[in-house]
């Protein structure tokens, strides 16, 4: 058994400084992240957002993890329900459509890179030029996707209803 095998054992991983660093970061920043997710379940003008943030900040670090884990249930059962009750289906549809479009852009990019790289590398370039052809394919496809999605996004924005800004919503809260 050589040193390489020993270095890959589970015990070494548990005792490594990286594990402690990740655990420390998760302990320090994890609860804040979960709280942010929970509060984002509520509408922007909801009092619950400020209430939960105030409670969270008043707690000690060791109490926060349990508190935010309990809040996940609240965020889903109360926040998302309120959001769903106040939903604007048209806006929701266009928002989802934009997100799906962005995801599709990356899929197209990934598939296209593979295809173009294969074509370029086999037809035009010598095998040792494979990296260069891949770079070229990435650049060409990124520009294409950017142009296409930009056009579609403008189209979607033109058709979607106008959204009220946060500042104007705070100045004129919905009754």
């Amino acid at each position, binding site marked *: 058994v050589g040193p390489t095998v020993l270095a890959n054992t589970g015990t070494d991983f548990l005792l490594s400084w990286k594990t402690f660093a990740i655990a420390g970061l998760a302990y320090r920043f994890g609860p804040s992240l979960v709280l942010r997710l929970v509060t984002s379940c509520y509408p922007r003008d909801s009092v619950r957002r400020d209430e939960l*943030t105030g409670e969270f900040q*008043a707690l000690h670090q060791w109490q926060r993890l349990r508190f935010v884990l309990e809040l996940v249930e609240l965020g889903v059962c109360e926040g998302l329900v309120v959001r769903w009750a106040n939903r604007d289906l048209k806006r929701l549809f266009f928002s989802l459509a934009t997100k799906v479009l962005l995801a599709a852009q990356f899929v197209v990019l990934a598939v296209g890179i593979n295809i173009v790289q294969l074509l370029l590398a086999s037809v035009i370039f010598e095998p040792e030029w494979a990296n260069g052809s891949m770079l070229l394919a990435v650049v060409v496809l990124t520009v294409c996707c950017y142009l296409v999605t930009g056009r579609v996004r403008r189209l979607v924005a033109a058709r979607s209803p106008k959204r009220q800004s946060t500042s104007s919503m705070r100045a004129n809260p919905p009754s």
Partner: protein
Amino acid sequence: MRLTHASVAVANAFMSEPWDDHYGYELSRRARVRSGVLYPILERWLQQGWLRDGWADHPEQRPQGPPRRYYQLTDIGRRELGQALDVARMDPRFGVIAWAPQY
């Protein structure tokens, strides 16, 4: 008021100090009720006028922290929750919770 284990426990936590301000996390610990159950109960009692709420700073813990929301029993709330607790104490289903000491 519809009596449930959670509502009786929260009522008991309120009525242990009926004149004080109560905070969400403190109430959930004292009543041993999850936040997901506690906040809807508080919301319902606020709408019924049994509670009033406000925002208070907590300088002893975090001077620069955001204000906390507190809940306080109204006169109607003290009467209603007192009656509900009396009923719960007679009911064998809630006996232990309704009489549970608060710390």
